[in-house]
C-alpha cells in the first residue's frame, strides 16, 4: 500500500493530488491564491480530498496516498506539532 521512501537530505513534501495539482502546474500563482482565498470548510457527505504525504511508520519512511486506504475506514488526525504538550 504505502511505498517505502529513501531518507535523503532534502525534506520530502507531499500535497494535494488530482485536479488541484494540475492547476498548480498550469498557474504558478495558485499557491499564493490558495493562501489568500478563504476556503470553505470541507463538508460531511462529500468525498475526502486526495493527497500524498511523506510519513514515518515503525522505523520506516514511507510515502502515503490517502486514496490507497479507501475501502477501509480511515481516521485522519491533524495536530499542531510534535513535542507539544497536549
Amino acid at each position: 500500500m504505502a511505498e517505502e521512501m529513501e531518507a535523503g537530505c532534502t525534506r520530502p513534501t507531499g500535497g494535494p493530488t488530482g485536479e488541484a495539482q494540475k492547476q498548480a502546474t498550469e498557474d504558478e500563482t495558485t499557491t499564493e491564491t490558495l493562501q489568500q482565498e478563504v476556503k470553505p470548510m470541507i463538508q460531511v457527505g462529500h468525498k475526502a480530498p486526495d493527497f500524498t504525504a511523506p510519513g514515518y511508520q515503525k522505523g520506516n519512511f514511507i510515502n502515503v496516498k490517502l486514496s490507497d486506504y479507501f475501502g477501509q475506514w480511515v481516521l485522519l488526525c491533524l495536530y499542531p506539532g510534535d513535542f507539544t504538550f497536549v
Partner: protein
Amino acid sequence: MSIDSVFVHKMWDENELSKMVDGGVPFPMLSDGGGQIGRLYGVFNEEAGVENRGRFIIDPDGVIQGYEVLTPPVGRNVNETIRQLQAFQYVRNSKGTEATPAGWKPGKTTLKPGPDLVGNVWKEWQTKMVE
C-alpha cells in the same frame, strides 16, 4: 499529520511516544510541511503556521462522515471518536435502515426511521438512555 518532518516524527516516536504506547505509534505519522494538506482540509492556522486539531472520519467509499476541529490547547477524546466510528459503521451495515440516537453506544437501542416513528420517538428513546 503535522507540519513536522518525518525525521522529527521518528525522534518523537522513539524518544517520547514509545514511552506512552507499547511499541510506539502503529499507524503512519504524516508530514505536511508547508501546510498544503491542512489548507485543503480547512484546518491550517495561518496566524500560527501550524495545523489546528482536525479529525476526520472517512468511510470506505472515501466520503467524509464526520469531523471535529479544536484549537491547540484542548486535546481530543479518543473514546468519543471510537463511539462515532462504531455508530457510522453500524448505520452503514444496516444499509441506511437504522439510525443511532443521541448518546448511542454499541448494544443500545437504534431507531428505524419510517412513517410510524413520527411523533413516537419518545416511546423508543429517553434522555436517561444517554448515560
